[in-house]
């Protein structure tokens, strides 16, 4: 049940990518889809009644959640930021050339 709610968050992002025409809205939608995927991986990793995967000198063995998806998501989050920066750079360049954010208007070829 909670997985399908997470998938609804993904579909909100998909809706934005399909329907919106403004480039900024499309960048936001791609970010929302990324959030949904990260959240889904961490939901898969959660174990009922477990602690975070960091040992302390007091207790060197305890029940812990799955650290492997967390490690994958940690790199994925940072990559998402650099992807957003690349998209923003492309959007600024498009605006400087065409003076609009509408993806329908930039389809015509221009020098």
């Amino acid at each position, binding site marked *: 049940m909670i997985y399908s709610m997470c998938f609804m968050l993904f579909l909100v992002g998909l809706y934005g990518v399909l329907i919106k025409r403004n480039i900024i809205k499309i960048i936001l939608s791609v970010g929302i889809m990324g959030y949904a995927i990260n959240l889904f991986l961490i939901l898969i990793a959660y174990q009922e009644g477990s602690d*975070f995967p960091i040992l*302390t000198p007091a207790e060197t063995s305890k029940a812990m959640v799955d650290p492997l998806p967390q490690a994958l998501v940690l790199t994925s989050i940072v990559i998402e930021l650099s992807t957003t920066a690349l998209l923003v750079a492309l959007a600024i360049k498009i605006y400087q050339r065409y003076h609009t954010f509408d993806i329908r208007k930039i389809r015509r070829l221009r020098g």
Partner: protein
Amino acid sequence: MNFIVKTVTRYTVWLIMLYGMYLVLFGHLNPGGGFVGGLVIALSFIHVTLAFGRSPQAGLPGEAISHNLEVAGAYIYVGIGVIGCALGLPFLTNFLGKGTPFTLLSAGTIPLLNLAITLKVGMGIYLLYLLLVETGHSH
């Protein structure tokens, strides 16, 4: 920015940067590590840039220096791996001694790799910010 923002920035940006360094150095003992430490350090640079503008008095690294630092991070990362190769082990093996757990100098090459990742991520994100802001102003 106005006077209040500048004064508050002058007194708080050191704390932000110190927190970033703490996250890097104790990344193998506490929550933290190279990624978030580098991002917090980059955030402290961006904080100064937002408050004071890109004035030379701020003494922040420019584009060339931050790009060199970023590439240096990548070279340190690969260099640690190549040292492992030279010792006859697979690439990027944890070849140093493990040390006593729960102390600062332990876990072999993990703190060194954390430093390399810090340079890589922090300077990379700061460089991206500088490039975006500069082209925005030039327009």
